[in-house]
């Protein structure tokens, strides 16, 4: 399942839902929660704003989920990504994979967050005490 939303989410409630939806079939649920840091490149961050490409974002996340489900045996996947203004400490992203066994769940969860970071059309703009600047993408992994 995919959610792109301005509202915060409750990781505990999301995990509980995955647990109850997959009770008996899933032996493992692995999740990742991404947070806004308060420091980047030596500057204190006051605000982080997430822009995205409505329509393409949902398609890109669906492709990531589908590829994870093709590569590993999963009983459920979940990707939540927030948009709009966020503050340091806020949750940005939540990715979870449920599987019969832990290794598949770990690998699928890592794959989904890694691929989201390179393929999903989101852009971060951070505000420091002196400026608002677009976060630059890290060099592509070799």
């Amino acid at each position, binding site marked *: 399942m995919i959610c792109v939303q301005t509202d915060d989410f409750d990781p505990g409630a999301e995990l509980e839902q995955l647990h109850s939806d997959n009770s008996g079939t899933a032996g493992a649920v692995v999740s990742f929660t*991404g947070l806004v840091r308060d420091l980047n490149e030596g500057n204190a961050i006051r605000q982080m704003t*997430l*822009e*995205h*490409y409505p*329509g*393409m974002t949902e*398609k890109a996340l669906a492709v990531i989920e589908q590829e994870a489900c093709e590569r590993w045996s999963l009983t459920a996947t979940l990707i939540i*990504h927030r948009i709009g203004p966020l503050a340091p400490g806020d949750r*940005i*992203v939540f990715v979870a994979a449920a599987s019969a066994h832990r290794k598949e769940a770990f690998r699928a969860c890592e794959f989904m*967050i890694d691929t*989201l*970071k*390179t*393929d*999903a*059309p*989101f*852009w*971060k*703009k951070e505000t420091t005490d002196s400026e608002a600047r*677009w*976060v*630059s*993408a890290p060099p592509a992994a070799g």
Partner: protein
Amino acid sequence: MVQLRYFASLRETLGVADEQVDLPDGIADLPALTGWLQERNDTWRTALGDPHLHVAINQAIVKPDCPVSDGDEVAWFPPVTGG
């Protein structure tokens, strides 16, 4: 008519988020469309000449030489930084 969209730092540099334009005769692929837009002025020439930009047609990433047809939605944007 094609729908053109620009995101993030590129949107700010160009001062436009989206627009609809009629494809001129002879504009049938991405390099031709980008080149035509770059003729607007130096800001467009420099901004759309950035080799790091990604282009999506109909909301899917495409290769630089992709064909463009009437009715397409074409979007240019910098490397993504979500997650």
